């Protein structure tokens, strides 16, 4: 078992375990911290696949910006777990059954397909480096890139308009 396999399984266990802790934590702040751990594990997977640019962007954008926004909102709202009323036990049970069925169906449907034995290029390959990604981004994808700036502007205006008092 090579170091790559060990790292893969370690990051997989870390990602799945902290994803489970996200949905089973009672305190919303703990959920957010576990979600940050999940994002770091996913960034580790990106590094293992040599997608270095996406790994850094994932940490900066998701773990850095989005989760801090979540933390700010939760702390501004001053949520305490006592304000959440008692929930229906069967509703949670039905939700877990539904999600488990989705997992079962997808796993059973994909298990024997032809593509499953294809190898993935680990640790090598330079398509994930910022040099190559930047060249393609500003040559072939420059129009979506510029349109996304308009999207950000409208999101910013929308957030300000929705968030201000009346």
């Amino acid at each position, binding site marked *: 078992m090579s170091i790559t396999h060990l790292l893969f399984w370690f990051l997989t266990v870390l*990602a799945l375990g902290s994803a489970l802790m996200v949905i089973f934590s009672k305190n919303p702040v703990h959920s957010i911290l576990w979600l940050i751990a*999940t994002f770091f594990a996913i960034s580790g997977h990106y590094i293992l696949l040599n997608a270095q640019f996406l790994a850094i962007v994932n940490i900066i954008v*998701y773990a850095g910006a989005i989760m801090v926004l979540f933390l700010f909102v939760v702390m501004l709202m001053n949520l305490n777990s006592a304000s*959440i009323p008692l929930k229906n036990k069967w509703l949670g049970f039905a939700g877990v059954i539904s999600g488990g069925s989705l997992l079962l169906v997808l796993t059973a449907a994909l298990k024997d397909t032809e*593509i499953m034995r294809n190898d993935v*290029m*680990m640790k090598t390959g330079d398509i994930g480096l910022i040099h190559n990604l930047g060249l393609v981004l500003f040559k072939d994808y420059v129009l979506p890139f510029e349109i996304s700036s308009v999207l950000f502007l409208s999101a910013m205006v929308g957030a300000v308009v929705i968030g201000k008092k009346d």
Partner: protein
Amino acid sequence: MTIQHYIFLAVALFSIGVIGVLTRRNIIIIFMCIELMLNAVNLLLVAFSKMHHLAAAAVDATTQAGIDGQLFVFFIMVVAAAEVSVGLAIIVMMYRNTHSVDVNFLNRLKH
């Protein structure tokens, strides 16, 4: 590693996100589970990109096949960031009106 490891990991992460959306009633945690599902898809896109690149690199060593998948992930992150900013503004607005983040109190679409 083969692609099936990544497929099963992404399917498991996505299902955990679905379970969270279905069982939790705190709207912020539901929102976080949506982010979790987006990240599962992103991971799968990167894995498929590297799989495609490996197959193409066996034919032509200087190929850049598969780079589109990683740019797609980049644009998904862009859209997710915009979505989160507007969504959290809506959540703050709803909290100001109802003083609750329980989705069962928000099912009327009117004040």
